[in-house]
């Protein structure tokens, strides 16, 4: 599944932000190559 993959973390302001996803996945030993938080206005 995610094992061995480079991860792109796309968070959302009204959901889980990108840095939080990156921190959680980084803590799981995964390589996060890009993280961002999108917002819909």
């Amino acid at each position, binding site marked *: *599944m995610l094992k061995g993959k480079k991860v*792109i973390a796309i968070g959302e302001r009204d*959901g889980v932000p990108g840095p939080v996803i990156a921190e959680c996945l980084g803590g799981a030993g995964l390589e996060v190559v*890009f993280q961002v938080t999108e917002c819909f206005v």
Partner: protein
Amino acid sequence: MNFENQGIIKRLADQYGPENLAVVLGNGDAQGAEVFAETVTQGDPTYAGPLAGVPLKIPVYHVLEEEVMTVVPEKLREEKLQLSLLVIDVEPMRQVLQASREKL
């Protein structure tokens, strides 16, 4: 998904190969997650961004899906994701993203 981010994802796919990438979303609703998933699997549905007509077929997960949650260390899960689990309805998210992954 905004055009700048589409461009970055396209570049990363060129650099690493889309087969070596996975996208993990943090959307608060299933509709937004579905549009994001379509963008990085089939191409930009608005046909306006850098991923228009570019089917990268990158598997997409939501950070609160069980498949992802189980790999996150318990401490981080409790500190960073537990609250989101209370306010975000994960099941509709899981359904649209699983359907998206099954099409790959």
